[in-house]
């Protein structure tokens, strides 16, 4: 079991002696162009099967959500807000994130202030990873890079990890019997095979605009802080980091983000907490009545 609380180096915590620096992603959504090259590169490299040929009509997103057969997911959010403010110096009152129906707000003939957010989501590789905590087979393990990986040949498909993930990332693969790893829990491995060979994960390699950056988590956190400062200086007060804080509910994630709006707008939980955070108390709560029970005089 990994450590449950507080900042920590996860690889050391998992028993690796002298591990390499922790690896992760910094996804800067302010430069994402929504090309989905990350989704395709991920599937190509990892042999992830097609995830349904369904037209969702959710802007340009027909992927829907992360899952066993979708390890990168680009969200598209259409908003009636001014464009291109990353480089504008005029601060604008944003109000709350809007979920209005198309056409509900502005006069169409002046509907020129419009914003289309794109963001590539991925497994967070949490410092405190509940999926790993609850895995009874040891299939999910902490790698020397501090990432969390499923071992296909050990997973028995029990599915405990699925509700454990506070982000709804991991899932069991659905499909017919010919589908690879059907019934097995699947998610991003941060391309364990590639990074073990000194290479960049497929998604970051394919990203044309450096929206997905791969590297040492410590260095990426500095990069993210610098980018955030630049955006704030340029009058984008709504820019924020998500998942980079080692004191958050999952101890900071290995994959974190720069967002231009509230996390909920992107379909991310605003304050994720590792679902096993209270496992000790829960264990005590579960145990206490029994103790009381034992203490009943015969």
């Amino acid at each position, binding site marked *: 079991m990994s450590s449950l609380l507080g900042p920590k180096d996860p690889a050391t915590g998992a028993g690796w002696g002298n591990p390499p620096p922790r690896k992760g992603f910094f996804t800067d959504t302010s*430069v994402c*162009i*929504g*090309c*989905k*090259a990350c*989704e*395709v590169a991920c*599937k*190509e490299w990892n042999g992830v*099967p*097609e*995830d*349904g*040929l*369904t*037209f969702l*009509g959710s*802007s*340009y997103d*027909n*992927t829907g959500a992360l899952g066993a057969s979708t390890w990168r997911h680009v969200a598209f959010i*259409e908003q*009636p807000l001014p*464009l*291109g403010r990353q*480089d*504008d110096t005029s601060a604008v009152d944003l109000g709350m994130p809007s979920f209005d*129906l*198309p*056409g*509900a707000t*502005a006069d*169409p*003939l*002046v*509907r*020129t202030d*419009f*914003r*289309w*957010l*794109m963001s590539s989501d991925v497994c967070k590789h949490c410092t405190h990873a509940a999926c790993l905590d609850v895995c009874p087979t040891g299939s999910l393990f902490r790698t020397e890079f501090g990432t969390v990986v499923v071992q296909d040949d050990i997973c028995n498909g029990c599915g405990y990890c699925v509700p454990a993930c506070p982000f709804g990332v991991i899932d069991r693969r659905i499909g017919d019997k010919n589908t690879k790893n059907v019934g097995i829990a699947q998610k991003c491995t941060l391309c364990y095979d590639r990074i073990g060979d000194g290479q960049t994960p497929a998604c970051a390699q394919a990203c*044309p*605009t*450096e929206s997905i950056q791969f590297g040492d988590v410590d260095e990426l956190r500095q990069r993210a802080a610098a980018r955030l400062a630049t955006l704030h200086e340029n009058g984008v007060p709504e820019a924020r980091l998500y998942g980079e804080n080692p004191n958050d509910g999952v101890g900071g994630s290995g994959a974190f983000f720069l967002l231009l709006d509230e996390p909920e707008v992107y379909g991310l939980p605003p304050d994720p907490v590792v679902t096993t955070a209270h496992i000790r108390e829960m264990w005590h709560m579960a145990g206490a009545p029994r103790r009381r029970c034992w203490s009943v005089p015969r």
Partner: protein
Amino acid sequence: MAECHPVGFQWVMAAKKRGATVIHVDPRFTRTSAVSDMHVPLRAGSDIAFLGGIVNYILTTETYFRDYVLAYTNASVILREDFRDVDDLDGVFSGYDPETGTYDTKTWHYEGAEPDSAAPGEETRTNESAHSQKERGAGHELGGHGANMGVGEIRRDPTLQHPRCVFQVLKRHYARYTPEMVQQVCGVPPEQFRQVCEAVTNNSGRERTTAWVYSVGWTHHTVGVQYIRGSAIIQLLLGNMGRPGGGIMALRGHASIQGSTDIPTLFNLLPGYLPMPTVDAHETLEDYLATISSPNQKGFWTAADAYTTSLLKAYWGDAATEENDFAFDYLPKLTGDHGTYQTVMDMLEDKVEGYFVIGQNPAIGSAHGKMQRLAMAHLKWLVVRDLNLIESATFWKDGPEIETGELKTGNIGTEVFFFPAASHVEKEGTFTQTHRMLQWRHKAVEPPGDCQSDLQFFYTLGRKIRERLAGSTLQRDRPVLDLTWSYPVDEHGEPSGDAVLREINGYHLTGDKAGQLLKSFTEMKADGSTSGGCWIYTGVYADGVNQADRRKPGKDQNWVAAEWGWAWPANRRTLYNRASADPEGRPWSERKAYVWWDAEAGKWTGHDVPDFVADKDPSYRPPPGASGPEGLAGDDPFIMQADGKGWLYAPTGLLDGPLPAHYEPQESPVLNPLYAQQSNPTRQVFRRKDNLQNPSAGEMGSDVFPYVFTTYRLAEHHTAGGMSRWVPYLSELQPEFFCEISPELAAERKLEHLGWATIVTARTAIEARVLVTDRVVPLRAGHKIIHQIGLPYHWGVGGNALVSGDAANDLFGVTLDSNVHIQESKVASCDIQPGRRPRGPALLTYVQEYRRRAGITIFTGNELRTGDPGSGGAAALMNDASMGDPA
């Protein structure tokens, strides 16, 4: 650009990071708009007015780069007295012939410049008619150089005050393109338009430059060439040509489309933009050379005799001798229009027996899909080479016309041969990208199964044909038998791409250097002592090194990065870069220094390869009557132009006007507010029962098709889908054909998000899923609200792909631009209704009913000269007995 060229778009993002302002002008809000500083939606087909408005702003605010304009453009040149502009003649320039729909362009010339030879638009030397030039798409020839114009004395007024000087003509021509007119035509509000004008002009001048980037949204129009001309005028006025960070960038539709124009797959061009000879004008090599490379011409095109002879030597080797005109007779000669669409119509008349479809999917990707499919059903044989069994290979069993009953599989006599093709990672060769840069690509894996490269296929086909003809004594077989057709092959029978590239580069054939590769096209000779497959590519194998295979990282060389790949001509990265220095040869500013004159060394130098005679002093002035390169002065930077100047006004070379003038698209619900002439009066129309057109504003029945639609691509798919709809990882990202509409149009037509819509034109009706989005904005053009419908064109009806759907291009008819035969497939009018389209023969009845309601005949929309009382008009034509059954 983010949508169709996401990898190239990384550099726009990099520029943005360094402070560049990115403005996106597009009817549609795309992934590019999402990261731009400003998105300017405009009505599809209105760009000439938009660009014209910017020209007007530049001229009225006097924000042009005066020193540059005076020295490097033809602003001061005085035009002939008999030139008349569109405002004088209600929408046509002087010289228009309403009978043929063509111009006699002699009144467009500079005063005093006697046309010397038959460059496009002229007819003095060869008596080639304007009609014939239009037939062969003569405008294409100018891809590598400017039009010819002789060496006569040109009159100038350096004060730019003469009423007939280009500058004053420009001012008058553009006076009507006010912000209010821009709003009326384009639907762009004046305030937003002002912001664009200010951004462009503030970012141009000595210290700064602005670049324009366009794609087929500018070219697939009946006026596309004039769109580009419009941006050329802006760039010349602002001094943004030949300078770093400036220019006009054409983003091509696929990898190496630039390469397939340089070494063309076009009927009217030979490699290096040499025109294809015509049967009536070019009986001998001398005739041909006289029309393309007159010795009395200024500029660098005078050496075209060496380029042509070297090409003939590359084709026919020892069989090309001085005695036989270097086998000039072996070249096929044009007899008329053999463009794509004319060929398709010829198929329908059974004039074409066989057809090769290679890396193309005309059943889906070409305008008027039904005409394409019906035409292919007339062929005796059809060869399709592709990665997958595309719809052009299966239309005979599962095309839309099988469902409607227009085609019956058992009645189609076409024998279809499908050859699986090797993909780009399974073969070696070059890609030429939009920057004219050749990049060598290595083979990563062997092609699977029977898949072959195009090179292997054609090499083998040629060998087999030659085997069949071996021993023939017929003269007609000599061109094939005498071809140089021998390349080293590997163990899989794959010819060496490297050997082909060497052949393209060219060799010394005789003398001490015999057998050595040419270093530059300047070494080419007209006497048969050199060979070369494409003169502009000569140097790609200079010094025996594959220069296209260079991959020195940017960080290890200067910012021009001349050692990455190789750009034609002569590895120049920016053309006409003499213009980056002032007339005296000094950089316009330190910040924008690029190439400059080193007076001490007596030569041009700088960061790039100077695009100028290396030792020509800036003060050089040609002696009277000088021709060729010597005819150009030391401050004439546009060295492929016959006068060395950038053309604000094009006195020759274009078939549809010396200046861009706004014309409405072939099908438009908007009346041209500038003059009675509605559309381009020289566009190529086809009055056919199988090519009916929607009525436009001003014609009876135009209200039946009240909406504008445009087609485009999505990042997730590739063109007609041959490379993406068979790939699960791409298909799942955009699985279905959809239409993008505004919430307002959805309300007006009761269209439901995720429901179905039927879109109708005079050709057919198609169905699409509905995507309602704020990204589509209704535009106010004058008093009219314009609704635009966006259609990605990646899907098609067939049984083999992972995802299929109706094809957007089926909605278009065939109407072409007069300069280059490009179809108008980026804008047309339509109706949209909720629900799915009728199936089977009922679909035909449904469309027929629309035609009846709109009163459509073969003349509808096809009148070339509109509003001119002398031309007869639509009413007279509609009484014509040949009107016939519009079905």
